[in-house]
């Protein structure tokens, strides 16, 4: 091996091994692909860094120039690239490398049998329904207007007939989303908004058909179809919001272990999909990868990051015989493990089971629209019935006019504006959040978040950034700094990354024989001799006479026979953690910290943030139990956490948030994911949730006001199709206009916010007082 060549112990070192690595990559790519036909595969990649026309052009032209690529389509909305490639003409794994060379990090998106990230079948169905309803509504309205403006009876009859011919198929096709949902609700013996909607549309249609074949005076075809059109707009907006949030969360999915490399036969390692891993299999885990299943180390030594499992930030040295959980991140050395579980009974699977059980409770949550429906639907149906009975008595048994009037009541009370009231507000709210880097998974999360009275934070990775940072660096000369930069750039250990970041932009020295010693550190030869960066005891071996009295927890650096220099590292709090917590406490919320970490560290963080109540050494089961206990006492808990150990608690809590850096499981379990490093997101999300709640209630009030004006007319038989059309459109427009006001939301300027809430300026930094107030209040 020649000097000054990049060499990492983990990288393939000769062509034989290189081809093995390539073959494994290839199997990984194929596992994520969908077979189109023959040797043609479709693979979807997420490319989070794709932003503009130039990016699309570079990616599409670049990939098209590759031999094996048949077609490329970049999608900027979902930030994905769908590639169809021919396995006979070249490897698919080269596509990722090629994208990396173009400057884009690409992740594989694992596709199921038929789905593709680029197509969205439900959205297309809604759009088609919307188009049909729009076409029908426009044409029928055209005919209706001429009837209203005084066409003679013959023409009116003809127009009603044509309207009916358009309306019946249009309602049958475009009304499906509402009919199926209403049927589902009825068969579960519940009432939702879709029940009165479906009933009104179908009855209006049936009555109008009957009318146009008998005397043909008045028909409500336009009302039925316009209603569907408006409501479908609401549905589609709602769908767009979920789609966008899901896409954004999917992008965060890292290339985590969707399988492992099996080395039962050491000469030919093969890639095994996660489901196919069985107990007793020997798996190789490279640095930077997560363990797919639980396992015992049989070869190798390494540092592992178990923070997502235990909540403890510091990495741990593991050697042969140690037992590790699925999801643990291997940091420095390549290890072989014997699987002690398959994917169905691993630690990760246990956590997932706990999560599913916890999530069932949340599934029972009834959104505000459905709660309204439970009151509203019986009320209007009773009203229609009362109208029918009243008219039967009043008119002395005139069936026709009695039925006609009671159906008119149903049409005029049809919750068109109510159907729009909720989704429009949610969509605008979600858009406002997304502009601030906060992704909300669905509308009901807004409602649940607004009800929260208790906030529980995890410590590591949530209150802190989860990445250690250098808090104290030694004084070094230029040459030493060069060595430190060169060494720290070589390692993927978080401590090394932190040091590299501290010297960001520093000129690296030329080193050779760089070698990472798992569990110890990294060493190399410089001009003056050996240099080492790593654990103090290990570095001290080459340093000059430096007696090491105590075991130092930091990272040390030394040149051969030189002095030891120490770096102090710490997992720092997020910059606005204290301010956010103070503001939350000011808003009257109870704030607590639950952590898997030691009491000492948790107490220190809690003290710094002014949180009076904290619990340490919590296991996933403890956390979920604690939250369920709080909720059974009537509390509504917002859980903010990131780890695998938090996932069940996230699922159990009334509402939950996770940072983008969270584990996959953690992100999946939470309602809201925030992508920026600021904890302020919790505050913004809560504020917007309160606002959306306010706007929804205003919308309901406005819609009901219209109904109150129209119902007396309908009950007394004064309503005409023209009046119904006018009432319906104006109430919808008013509701939408009111929802748009949410766009006026301005983010609180943080410091100002903390101060203004506190009342006096110095309060922002006086968390002690807040907690005392809190205790006094409790």
């Amino acid at each position, binding site marked *: 091996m020649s000097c000054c060549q990049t060499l990492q112990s983990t990288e393939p070192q000769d062509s034989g091994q290189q081809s093995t690595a390539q073959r494994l990559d290839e199997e990984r790519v194929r596992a994520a692909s969908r077979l189109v036909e023959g040797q043609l595969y479709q693979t979807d990649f997420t490319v989070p860094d794709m932003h503009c026309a130039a990016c*699309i052009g570079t990616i599409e032209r670049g990939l*098209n120039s590759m031999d094996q690529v048949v077609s490329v389509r*970049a999608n*900027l*909305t979902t930030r994905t690239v769908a590639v169809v490639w021919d396995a006979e003409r070249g490897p698919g794994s080269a596509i990722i490398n090629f994208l990396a060379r173009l400057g884009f990090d690409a992740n594989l998106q694992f596709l199921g049998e038929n789905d593709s990230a*680029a*197509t969205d079948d439900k959205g297309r169905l809604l*759009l088609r329904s919307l*188009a049909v309803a729009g076409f029908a509504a426009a044409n029928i309205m055209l005919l209706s207007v001429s009837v209203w403006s005084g066409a003679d009876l013959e023409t009116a009859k003809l127009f009603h007939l044509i309207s009916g011919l358009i309306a019946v198929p249009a309602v049958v096709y475009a009304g499906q989303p509402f009919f199926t949902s209403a049927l589902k609700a009825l068969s579960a013996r519940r009432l939702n908004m879709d029940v009165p909607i479906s009933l009104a549309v179908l009855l209006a249609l049936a009555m109008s058909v009957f009318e146009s074949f008998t005397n043909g005076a008045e028909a409500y075809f336009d009302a039925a179809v316009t209603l569907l059109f408006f409501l479908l707009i609401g549905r589609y907006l709602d769908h767009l919001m979920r789609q966008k949030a899901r896409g954004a969360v999917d992008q965060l999915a890292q290339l985590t272990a969707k399988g492992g490399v099996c080395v039962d036969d050491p000469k030919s390692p093969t890639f095994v999909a996660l489901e196919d891993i069985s107990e007793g299999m020997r798996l190789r885990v490279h640095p930077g990868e997560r363990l797919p299943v639980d396992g015992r180390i049989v070869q190798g030594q390494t540092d592992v990051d178990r923070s997502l499992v235990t909540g403890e930030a510091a990495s741990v040295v593991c050697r042969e015989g140690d037992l590790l959980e699925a999801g643990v991140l291997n940091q420095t050395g390549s290890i072989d493990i014997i699987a002690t579980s398959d994917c169905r009974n691993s630690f990760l699977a246990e956590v997932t089971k706990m999560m599913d059980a916890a999530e069932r409770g949340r599934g029972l949550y009834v959104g505000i629209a459905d709660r309204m429906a439970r009151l509203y639907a019986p009320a209007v149906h009773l009203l229609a019935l009362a109208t029918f009975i009243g008219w039967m008595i009043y008119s002395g048994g005139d069936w026709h006019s009695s039925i006609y009037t009671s159906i008119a009541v149903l049409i005029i009370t049809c919750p068109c504006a109510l159907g729009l009231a909720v989704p429009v507000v949610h969509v605008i709210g979600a858009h406002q959040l997304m502009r601030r880097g906060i992704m909300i998974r669905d509308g009901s999360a807004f409602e649940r978040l607004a009800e929260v009275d208790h906030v529980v934070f995890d410590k590591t990775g949530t209150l802190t950034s989860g990445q250690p940072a250098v808090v104290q660096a030694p004084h070094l000369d230029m040459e030493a700094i060069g060595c430190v930069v060169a060494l720290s750039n070589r390692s993927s250990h978080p401590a090394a990354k932190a040091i590299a970041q501290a010297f960001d932009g520093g000129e690296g020295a030329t080193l050779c024989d760089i070698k990472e010693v798992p569990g110890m550190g990294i060493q190399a030869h410089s001009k003056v001799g050996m240099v080492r960066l790593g654990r103090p005891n290990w570095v001290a071996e080459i340093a000059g006479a430096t007696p090491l009295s105590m075991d130092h927890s930091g990272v040390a650096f030394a040149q051969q026979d030189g002095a030891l220099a120490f770096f102090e590292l710490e997992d720092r709090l997020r910059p606005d953690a204290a301010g956010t917590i103070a503001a939350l406490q000011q808003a009257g919320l109870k704030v607590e910290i639950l952590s898997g970490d030691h009491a000492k560290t948790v107490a220190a963080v809690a003290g710094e943030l002014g949180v009076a109540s904290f619990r340490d050494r919590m296991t996933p089961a403890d956390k979920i139990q604690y939250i369920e206990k709080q909720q059974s006492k009537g509390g509504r808990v917002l859980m903010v956490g990131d780890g695998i150990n938090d996932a069940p608690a996230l699922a159990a809590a009334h509402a939950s948030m996770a940072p983008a850096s969270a584990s996959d499981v953690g992100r999946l379990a939470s309602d809201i994911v925030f992508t920026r490093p600021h904890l302020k997101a919790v505050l913004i999300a809560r504020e917007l949730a309160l606002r959306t709640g306010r706007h929804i209630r205003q919308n309901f009030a406005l819609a009901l006001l219209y109904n109150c004006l129209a119902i007396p007319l309908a009950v007394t038989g004064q309503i005409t199709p023209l009046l119904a059309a006018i009432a319906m459109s104006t109430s919808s427009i008013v509701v939408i206009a009111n929802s748009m006001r949410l766009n006026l939301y301005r983010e609180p300027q943080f410091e100002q916010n903390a101060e203004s809430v506190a009342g006096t300026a110095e309060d922002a930094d006086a968390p002690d007082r807040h907690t005392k107030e809190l205790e006094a209040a409790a």
Partner: protein
Amino acid sequence: MSHLLVLIPIALGLGALGLAAFFWSLRAGQYDDLEGASVRILDGESEETPS
């Protein structure tokens, strides 16, 4: 009245034509990437539309 017999089919036919055009564009994937479409126009070099 006789005007109507001509005009109404024309109106409906044009509407249906628009609807058909929309369905075609939906099937052709023109609604899959609304943000991308708005920036692709700035990229002068891509002359084709890959399916």
